[in-house]
């Protein structure tokens, strides 16, 4: 019951999804769309568990006065406040939208912009010509970095055209870059097929819990 039925479910629906790929008919297209919708619906319901987990974790921090428990109050209050406003006023009300616009999105974009700093420090540390492999990584990064901004074009303008940075950068992007991506994609395609097959056949069942849910 706890192990066999889930494995049967995975097998049946997995097999159906493979078969439907080859059957264009309306009825299969309909089922395909329905089943996709169903997974979305499961996701919607599961959000309750997610929110439950968030509250439990922070509540236990507050209750046992674990380090930083004061910040957990901030989370609980902002979660409840935002939900309440959204529940009463709907998602189109001005306050709800403004809390998103001025409370959430500046943090989102600033977190994202930290990458400008992190990229610099990562490049400083990692791009050292220790080995052939590291050197290739380093050179191709530098060429593309300079070749894609005006300065790179200015500093190599005196060279013959095919040696100018922007053209080398374009070559790197269009030849080795495209080729490596294709190879990786092909490998990923096969890898995904293999893992999916193992899941459908019930060989791979970690998702049922540790030793396959025994």
């Amino acid at each position, binding site marked *: 019951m706890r192990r066999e*039925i889930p494995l049967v*479910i*995975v097998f049946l629906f*997995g097999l159906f*999804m493979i078969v439907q*790929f080859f059957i264009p008919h309306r009825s299969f297209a309909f089922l395909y769309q329905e*089943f996709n*919708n*169903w*997974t979305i*619906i*499961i996701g919607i319901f*599961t959000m*309750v*568990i997610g929110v439950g987990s968030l509250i439990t974790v922070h509540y236990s921090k507050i209750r046992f006065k674990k380090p*930083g428990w004061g*910040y*957990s109050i*901030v989370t*609980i209050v902002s979660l409840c406040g*935002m*939900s309440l*406003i959204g*529940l009463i006023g*709907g*998602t189109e009300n001005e306050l709800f939208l403004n809390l*998103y616009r*001025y*409370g959430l999105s*500046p*943090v989102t*974009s600033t977190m*994202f*912009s*930290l990458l400008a700093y992190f*990229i610099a420090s990562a490049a400083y540390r990692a791009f050292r010509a220790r080995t052939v492999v590291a050197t*290739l*990584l380093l050179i191709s*990064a530098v060429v593309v970095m300079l070749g*894609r901004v005006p300065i790179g074009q200015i500093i190599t303008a005196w060279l013959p055209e095919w040696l100018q940075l922007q053209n080398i950068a374009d070559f*790197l992007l269009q030849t*080795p*870059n*495209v*080729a*490596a*991506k*294709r*190879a*990786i994609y*092909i*490998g990923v*395609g096969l890898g*995904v*097929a293999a*893992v*999916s097959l193992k*899941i*459908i056949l019930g060989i791979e069942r970690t998702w049922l819990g540790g030793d396959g*849910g025994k």
Partner: protein
Amino acid sequence: MTPQEWGLYEYIFNGVAALLTLCIFSFLYKDNPFYKFAERLVAGVATGYFTMLLFWTNFMDKVYDPLKAGQWWYIFPAVLGVMMWTRFSKKWAWVSRYSIAFYIGIGSGVSITVYLYTYLFKQLQATIGFPITMDIAGLNQFLVIIAVLSALVYFFFSTPHKGALGFVSKIGIYVIMICFGAGFGLTVMGRVALLVNRVIFLKGYLIQLFGG
């Protein structure tokens, strides 16, 4: 930039946004109470925001409306969804495996064909569809093919990378590294742009406060 007509409301909201921006930037120096505050605040706000969005748009559109419209079979996914709630109980948590099994079954079934199609066939077709001609384009195409083949060899798992195979796989990892370097270099662009945008925002707020 010139100051615009702002009311108190705009000053407060933009002030909050500017403050939060600085809170996050402070993380660069080290972890501190301001960052902690911003981090915990947005965890709550974001969850509240997305939960409400899920409820009002997705739940209403995908579950409530179809059921109301008489599409009775939507009771199945709703039941599967509710079964996930058994996770709140230690004793019944295993029931949620049924829903998870459905979810994973659909996902892996779709993936086999879709990945073979978009990742294998499309890439294969793009690689072999061009003739090797005696010009720059032909040379380029030839290089692409050599590079694809050697990078593929790098990913062979069941043979030792020795001898000729070792040599080819070495070329393969070189190609892959050039690809990663190019990817890294290209990304720097976008990331600096993001920072520029935040700086422009802060500058705008300062101008607004103190005049241009």
